[in-house]
């Protein structure tokens, strides 16, 4: 049977099966189990209504339980057993083995870089695009073009950017845009301006912003007037502050690196095999995709800022920047956090880009691809599962935060 026909049949069976299940189970409940007739009619209706929600939920609960809840625990179990030794329990041996691998630490380091750079850059570009496109007539058209990469697969995007990063031998025409642009630089004033000064300024802005955020969080926590909150909040803010600190240190290193780095002018570069740069170039792919998402959400948030607050600020003599940073930013801070965490989740799951472009060679490994390599190339299920658990651990603060927020909202 051809797969297309099989697909059609599955749709039919799946959909009619689902609908049939819901219809007949309801009928069964109302007509057979608790019929709304006879002397027990009232009690039966109440009972039927108590059971019905679970009828509606059952298929979803089975699917969720089997495909998401069970695997979490199963993976945890696999990460502590050895497949070759008949699935014997080995405690933390797999973790120990994983921590001894340099490839794992390379993946961890890269993942930290990804976690800092991609959400920051996407959110910043998204905010910029949202703020700018909301002010012009063809803004919606511009938005849909910036948003477009959202529809492109990571693999498709990888091909697109591989063409951009393509390298040809020295005396031939470069067909990759990046090298074609690169060969225009010759070490003169323009090169200094574009390759050192402007990036350095951007890095400095970023570092300053992060330092400011970290400082504010720390100050609020440490202020004598501060009421001791929950332990969870303290841990969260301590984590945030240390994350900011790490980012600031990396940023400062990058800042000075930009001025001392010896650029190889005039030679076409093989971008994807040059460590550190290649990781950043892979990040560019994800930033390109995620900026549209950030822009759409932030643009809606910016439109939701009440006009009166802006008008009042302008009447009081605030300039454009003050309006943006002092009036709008505080009001969309919650949305920025949402965008940031959502992109963080995407970053932690990113596998296709690295797999398609470098497959983790040349020091570009990330956790998700490391895990895939351990599971399906090295066939080491123990270490692979341990890597998956590490990803889960990195995700869990966001999980707790989201659940906490939703519970607060529902109360």
């Amino acid at each position, binding site marked *: 049977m051809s*797969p*297309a026909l*099989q*697909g059609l049949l599955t*749709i039919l069976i*799946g959909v009619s099966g689902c609908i049939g299940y819901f219809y007949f189970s*309801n009928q069964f409940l109302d007509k057979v189990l608790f019929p709304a007739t006879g002397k027990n009619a009232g009690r039966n209706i109440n009972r039927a*209504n108590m059971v019905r929600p679970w009828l*509606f*939920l059952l298929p*979803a609960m089975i*699917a969720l339980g*089997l*495909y*998401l*809840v069970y*695997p*979490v625990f199963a*993976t945890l179990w696999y990460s502590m057993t050895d497949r070759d030794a008949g699935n014997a329990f080995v405690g933390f041996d797999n973790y120990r083995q994983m921590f001894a691998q340099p490839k794992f630490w390379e993946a961890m380091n890269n993942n930290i870089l990804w976690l800092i750079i991609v959400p920051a850059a996407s959110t910043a570009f998204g905010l910029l*695009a949202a703020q*700018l496109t909301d002010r012009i007539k063809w803004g919606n058209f*511009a938005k849909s*073009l*910036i948003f*477009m990469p*959202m*529809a*492109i*697969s990571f693999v*498709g*995007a*990888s*091909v*697109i*950017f*591989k*063409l951009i990063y393509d390298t040809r031998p020295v005396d031939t*025409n470069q*067909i990759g*845009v990046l090298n074609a642009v690169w060969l225009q630089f010759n070490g003169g004033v323009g090169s200094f301006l574009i390759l050192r000064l402007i990036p350095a300024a951007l890095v400095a802005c970023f570092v300053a912003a992060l330092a400011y955020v970290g400082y504010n969080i720390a100050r609020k926590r440490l202020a004598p007037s501060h009421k001791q909150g929950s332990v969870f909040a303290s841990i969260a803010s301590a984590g945030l502050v240390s994350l900011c600190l790490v980012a600031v240190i990396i940023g400062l290193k990058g800042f000075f690196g930009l001025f001392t780095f010896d650029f190889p002018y005039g030679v076409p570069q093989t971008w994807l095999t040059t460590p550190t740069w290649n990781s950043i170039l892979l990040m560019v792919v994800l930033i*390109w995709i995620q900026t549209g998402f950030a822009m*759409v*959400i932030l643009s809606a948030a910016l439109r939701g800022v009440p006009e009166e607050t*802006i008008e009042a600020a*302008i009447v009081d003599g605030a300039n454009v920047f003050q309006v943006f940073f002092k009036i709008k930013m505080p009001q969309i801070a919650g949305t920025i956090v949402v965008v940031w965490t959502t992109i963080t989740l995407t970053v932690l799951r990113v596998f296709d880009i690295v*797999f*398609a472009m470098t497959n983790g060679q040349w020091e570009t490994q990330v956790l998700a691809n490391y895990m*895939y390599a351990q*599971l*399906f190339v090295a066939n080491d299920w123990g270490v692979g*599962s341990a890597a*998956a*658990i590490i990803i*889960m651990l990195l*995700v869990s603060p966001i*999980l707790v935060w*989201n659940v906490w927020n*939703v519970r607060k*909202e*529902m109360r």
Partner: protein
Amino acid sequence: MDNIAGKKSGLSWAVNISVALLVMLWVFPTAGLFVSSFRTADQISSNGWWQSLFNTEQNVVLRAADPDDDGVQVLENGTYVIRGNLYGEAGKAEIGAWGVNSREIDTHVAGDSAELGDGQVITVQANGDYVLTSPTEMTGRGQRVFATAETPPEFTLDNYRSMLFDPNNIEGMAKAFFNTLTVTIPATIIPIVIAAFAAYALAWMDFPGRAILVAVVVGLLVVPLQLALIPLLRFHLNIGIGKGYLGVWLAHTGFGLPLAIYLLRNYMVGLPRDIIENAKVDGATDFQIFTKIVLPLSFPALASFAIFQFLWTWNDLLVAKVFLIDSTGQTTVMTNQIVELLGTRGGNWEILATAAFVSIAVPLAVFFAMQKYLVRGLLAGSVK
């Protein structure tokens, strides 16, 4: 906002230019792939795609017809003559300068004649027409001509023809395209049906534990599907599904459900309470309320999720690699096919660009057609 308080921004030109730059930066990569997919291998490797949109000046080596072939040489008034066009037909390129020696490729301009020794003379016109005359019968291979030619932009559909419609091309995308479609459609529809019922229960039915279930769904929204790979693959192998379409449909259903339930529940909660309570008073059962009232009203949320799930399953690589593609490779999907081409045909950009564009064309069409719903879904789906 700038008009508020009688102020007019003087910077609107700067804003327009910045947005134009940003948009160009964002469209440029995709445009490169699109243009490249319409170029031949030679064109792609000879210059960048951004140059292909304009006339390009190229140094080319052309060859006159081979004198040994029948009927090429004709004897006219005692001289042997070969006539023809260096490009095969006129009008393909505009020759500026030319030469007959690889060290002197621009010694003559179009219309000139060049001495080749032994009394042979060649005359080359701008459109490639040439006349080669010789007092004796010519032998050997055709005369080489080195030319600097202005070539107009030229595009071809051959790449698409060979990648999509050539049944002999084992690297073709046609099969992978249908496989992707086969994965995508059931994997989009089934979770919607299951999630809609669950979302209705979570939104409009009262039962103990509802709040906890909602919290669980929100928590599951975040669980990385990487955790599910090994346990589920083992599960599928144990119950006899193995690697195949059924497995990938089930996996996509499971992974898509949290978002589906969350999106639909959030939308359904917002429906007006009056309608549903009136229906209840009139004696409608929950099943009727759901199918006759809630479901039709929830169409925008259903559409949002359908687009998400469609894009996600169409673009997915990991789930297909783990749950679908077996060693025979008969069930390969487009993303996997492209990754394999990247490995084996790393430098053949005409193949890669065409393959990639075939795979992103459908999501792009869906995106532009249904953008409204996608944006709405994004706004509702990001956890507040």
